[in-house]
Structure formats: C-alpha cells, structure tokens
C-alpha cells in the first residue's frame, strides 16, 4: 500500500493506493465467498462497496429474513450468513474499501487495471471481479420534473452535515425512520422544519412517531400529512416547494432546503460505462469462466447474465469458484495450478 498526501480544497488528504490480486467490486455474499476460493489459490483480494458495511442486500435490505436454500443450512438469517462468510474468509485477510463507489476503471501501463472510487481511493489489480449484485444503492428521487436543477442547491437526498441547516428553513418528505429522526434532530437546528407525508399514519419506530406528533402539537415543527411535494420553485437555488394536499389543494411553502427521504434503490451506476456488454441491466459473461468481453474483468453473482441464469446466492458461489481458476491462469500464466480439497489440505491463511 502506498500512501501519498495531497492537498485538495485546502484540506490535507492521504492518497492511498491499494494493490491486490483480485479486486472485487461488491461485498455481498458472492464477493465475500470469492475471497475464500481465491485464498485457496493463494490469491489476495480486496473488496469495494458503496455501502458502509459488508453483506450487500443481505445486510442492507433483509438482515432478519431467513434464507432456505443455502446447502447445509435448512434455514439461516441473511445477517447470520454474512457473519459466517466473514468468519470463513478471515484467514485470507481481505481488504475493504467501504462506503465508496467504484467509479472509473482504466488500464495501467503494465497491463493491470486502475480503479478509482468516487472519493478518490486508487486500487490496482491484474483482475477485477464485478460482484455488484443489483448495482449501487442510491437514494430514491421523487419524480419532480425539475428536481435535478436544485440538487446541491437546496435539494439533498442524504444529510451529510446537519450544520448546513442551522437557522435555515427545511422541508423534509417521507414517512419512515430517517424522515422522522431527521425531523426531530433538525427541529433544534433549523429555524423551521416542515415534515410532509403522504399518509396520516407513520411507519417507523413508535417513540419517533410520538416525538414528532409532540413537536407538532407544541408548534416546534409543521406537520403536513396526506400531502406530497409535487413541485419546486426557484431560480438556480430553491425558494419554495409546492405541496399538494389531498383535500386542501396546493400550498406554496417557502424554504431554503428540501430533503426527500424515500429510502434507497439499486442502480447499475458507473458499471454501465466500463465498456462491458450489458443486457437488461446485467453483464454478459461466458459461462466457461464468467469472463466479460473485457479480458481480465469478470462478473459473478446477480449482476451477470447468461442463458439459464438464476439469481441465487448458491449460483454466485459456484461462479466465483470457477472464476478464480481463470483469474489464477491470467495472473500466473506460467505457473501450474493443482486443484486441492480443503478436507485434505486444510485452510492455510495469509499471515
């Protein structure tokens, strides 16, 4: 690992370059298990994921749901499966770049790949395995025609720094935990908070719901239910939102910020721009070794497609296993590869 420091926008950053054998994009079950199979061939792996934790959809969307088709487990909770996988690959000391999205891939002079994330972290590897599942999870954007004009000029889908709302007027939309929690939090920070929700009842934790109702009754926040934000007004920066109420019609509400909080949805994202053959949001692969049309880049798990494809964790494990055999031959074209059973040889991890 090479660390360089550089200054950007007046701040000092450590620029880190990570080198590995197989760079795995996506730290879901398929990417995680691939670390194990690669480790058996003495190949090191590093995983990148846009989410802040490993596990992909299993951790992000359904950690408490049971899975019934993992061989040997009549049932296992998704979150538990991720924990077991992490334990299984621990001997092979995988590296992780979490909370960063793989953005750009380019060829290096020595024929390897350089991958840079949205936060500028550089990775170099001879092989890339895309195990990106459904793609990157990104905030759901409400279908308001001019919303993109105001992004970062009054419209934010994620609250990164609550201080920017200090003494400002804020409109939050949504009915889930994050909408409720941020309404409560910003009630003490912003000069005015308005929460707009489509229904009259809220899902989300009961104490948060009670707290929001209490804040509304004591006039600390404006609560507008059975209403939706349908329009945005302003010239370059946001001045007001149009709120459509089920019975009372349209209201114009002056505001400095609009924060729509409608959860996350998966998007293919930058992967679509890497020159890979893609059909219906999935990467075409050769089932011989799950290679893509770009030599050295493989795609495994839910993100790939081939005749007969099934999006199953089970199948992703198989794909990763075969893929690393091909990756080995690509990395060490002159080395002999002998296949070994773990039962015979055990698992020799890395120091």
């Amino acid at each position, binding site marked *: 690992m090479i660390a360089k420091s550089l200054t950007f926008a007046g701040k000092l950053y450590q620029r880190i370059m990570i080198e590995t054998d197989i760079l795995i994009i996506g730290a879901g079950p398929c990417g995680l298990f691939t670390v194990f199979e690669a480790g058996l061939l003495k190949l090191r792996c590093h995983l990148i994921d846009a989410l802040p934790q490993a596990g992909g959809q299993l951790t992000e969307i359904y950690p408490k749901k049971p899975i019934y088709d993992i061989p040997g487990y009549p049932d296992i909770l998704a979150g538990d499966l991720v924990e077991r996988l992490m334990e299984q690959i621990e001997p092979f000391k995988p590296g992780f770049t979490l909370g960063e999205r793989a953005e750009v891939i380019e060829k290096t002079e020595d024929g390897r790949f350089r991958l840079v994330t949205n936060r500028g972290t550089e990775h170099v590897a001879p092989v890339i395995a895309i195990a990106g599942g*459904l793609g990157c999870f990104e905030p759901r954007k*409400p*279908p308001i025609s001019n919303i993109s004009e105001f992004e970062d000029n009054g419209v934010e889908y994620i609250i990164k720094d609550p201080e920017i709302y200090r003494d400002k007027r804020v409109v939050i939309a*949504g009915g*889930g935990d994050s909408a409720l929690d941020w309404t409560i939090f910003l009630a003490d920070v912003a000069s005015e908070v308005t929460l707009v929700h489509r*229904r009259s009842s809220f899902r989300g934790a009961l104490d948060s719901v009670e707290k929001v109702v209490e804040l509304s009754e004591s006039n600390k926040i404006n609560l507008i239910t059975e209403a939706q934000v349908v329009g945005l007004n302003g010239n370059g920066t946001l001045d007001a939102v149009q709120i459509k109420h089920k019975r009372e019609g349209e209201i114009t509400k002056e505001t400095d910020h609009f924060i729509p909080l409608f*959860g996350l949805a*998966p998007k293919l994202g930058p992967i679509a721009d890497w020159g890979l053959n893609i059909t219906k949001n999935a990467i075409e692969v050769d089932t011989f070794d799950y290679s893509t049309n770009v030599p050295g880049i493989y795609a495994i798990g839910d993100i790939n497609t081939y005749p007969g494809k099934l999006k199953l964790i089970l199948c992703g494990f198989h794909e990763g296993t075969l893929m690393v055999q091909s990756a080995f031959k690509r990395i060490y074209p002159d080395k002999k590869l002998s296949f070994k059973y773990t039962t015979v040889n055990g698992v020799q991890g890395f120091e």
Partner: protein
Amino acid sequence: MDIVNITVIDREGEEKTLEAPTDMNMNLMEFFKSYEYPVEGTCGGMALCSTCHCYVESEHDLPEMGEDEEDMLDQAFFVDDEKSRLGCQIAITPELDGLIVKLAPSAE
C-alpha cells in the same frame, strides 16, 4: 378452475386479457414477468422495492395490505391510496378472475 383471466393495462395504456394459473404458487409480479412486462421485481417478492407497483382498477375484494406492503408503498411514488398495490403481495387465486390491473409508472 386452474386458470383465471386477468386484464393488464401496460404503461403505454395497451390492454390485454391474459391467462394466469392458480396452481403455480404465483403472484401478480411473477405473472407480469412471465408475460415479459417491464416489471423488474428487483427484490424478488419481499415487498422491498416497489418495482411491481400497480393499480387495481376493478372492484375485486383483495386480501388486505400487510405492514411490509404499506411501508414500501410509503417510499414509492405515483401512489394512489385507493388503488395502489404491490403485485408481489397478491397471490393468484380463483377469486382474481376478471381482475383489471394497471402498471404504475416506472420510478426511474
């Protein structure tokens, strides 16, 4: 009866009456996909993505919404309080015969 007729109105407004099996443990999302409608079914039927969001246009008495479905519709767009449902939460049963269902606009 193992087959029911369901009328689907797609996002372009085109209407088709199609046969759906009641004995295949199928739901409306899977039924849309089996006829190659542009319904992603991203989450696989766990009421976690709203890509199978549709409007029930006929007067059928459908099973009530569960909490998961209500939660997800809260995060969806183009929701009609009277008609919106998630296709994945509606099993294809003999009671669905004659159902008219319209696909909600894609959120993307």
